[in-house]
């Protein structure tokens, strides 16, 4: 599929994933350029325990700064923020991070919907959201909001995802800007603001 390059520059990239998404992240991260001009937020479903495992894994695969998101911290370009296990992560109008320990959404905390929805309102057409492999329908409502606010929706190709259900639900319910195989994602991200 041809890449769609839009006029508005990307001000934030959010990647959401569940089962089967770690492999994709580990494929993307080593290939990312070191001067990414926007913040990257990662929302991945996982157990409440083994807290820093994901952060440590991703840290070892990139020269970008990777940290577990702290509440009230500001998003900043070239930095990777990981939604902490067992908290929802929201983005405020001033681009700071709010954490929230409210009810699970789609059996998940962090929920991808929650982060996509709050970021959609803040970054509008300058937001890019990527939904990866997974086996529940989290992320779909969030992508609808991203579309409503004219942001860009990118979905992993369900046919090549380890767990196709989540990207499949997204493709069925949301008009994506582009559907990508995992090996094309790093390149897509690297060229977002070219």
């Amino acid at each position, binding site marked *: 599929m041809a890449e769609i390059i839009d006029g508005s520059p990307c001000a934030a990239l959010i990647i959401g994933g569940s089962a089967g998404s770690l492999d994709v992240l580990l494929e993307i991260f080593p290939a990312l350029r070191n001067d990414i001009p926007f913040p990257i937020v990662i929302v991945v479903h996982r157990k409440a325990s083994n807290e820093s495992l994901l952060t440590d894994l991703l840290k070892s695969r990139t020269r970008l700064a990777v940290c577990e998101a*702290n*509440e*009230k911290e500001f998003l900043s370009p070239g930095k990777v923020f990981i939604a*902490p296990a067992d*908290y929802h992560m*929201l*983005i*405020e*109008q001033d681009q700071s991070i*709010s*954490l*929230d*320990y*409210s*009810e699970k959404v789609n059996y998940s905390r962090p929920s991808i*919907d*929650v982060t996509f*929805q*709050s970021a*959609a*309102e803040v970054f509008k057409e300058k937001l890019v959201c990527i939904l990866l492999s997974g086996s529940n329908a989290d992320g779909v*409502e969030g992508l609808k*909001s991203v579309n*409503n*606010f004219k942001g860009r929706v990118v979905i992993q190709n369900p046919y090549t995802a380890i767990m196709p259900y989540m990207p499949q639900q997204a493709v069925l319910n949301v008009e994506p800007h582009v559907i990508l195989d995992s090996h094309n994602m790093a390149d897509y991200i690297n060229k977002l603001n070219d």
Partner: protein
Amino acid sequence: MISDAINNEQVEILLNDVLETHGYDFLEYSHASIKRRITRLYGLDNFVSFAEFRYTVKTDKQYFKRFLEEITVNVTEMFRDPSFYKSLRQDVLPVLGTYPFIRIWVAGCSTGEEAYSLAIVLKELNLLSKSLIYATDINPSVLEKAKKGMFPLTYLKQYSENYLQSGGVKDFSTYYTANYSLAKFDESLNSKMIFSTHNLVSDHSFNEFQLILCRNVLIYFDKDLQHKVFNLFDNSIEKLGYLALGSKESLEFWPKAKEYKRVKMEKIWRKL
């Protein structure tokens, strides 16, 4: 859930109404979170217009009770973050045990799970008889639940695991009796608790404590309000007393943080 059913100005209007009509000030809560809570409730209760929602919140006292309960987050757990409770058991409470009398404030206690967890640890350290736990919340209806000490039985497996991981050595089921779908906790535990409404935004210090526990409450406040609440706690903690926060909360940016010393790796600070 439609995330853009209510816009930012409407949130502002609603929260101003709530302050003027009911006296609760949510204007310094983290905006994205409170907006999400409001939008969620609007959807849950099938309102068809913002005007109808606003009118109901403003004029229907019964509905306002629900509003208050639903826009504040009342998700909590017993022995949440077991390593935190382990540190309370090993590092904090034994020190307080040297005092003749222990006063503890659980601020924002919601339905009481943390207060009961604390009471269990105190009991096992033989300190409960000389302790008093003040459990407060903004919300009268969650306090009614907390007083009863009854929690859904379905969560007890998780709580029991948390308890064991936190260094508990007893059979957790000795602390409650199963009653249909609820676990009723031993009355000796809440005999040392005082439940009362207290609004961290508008109410003042009401006593001096050796330990204040306030976990996953401040994440819903903006930075200025967080600092006000830290000042309130500072006025309510004795010298060498302790302040315990949630796993993602921190004193870090508060100007008086230098006067507190972190206890090991946990979110517990000791006033110097």
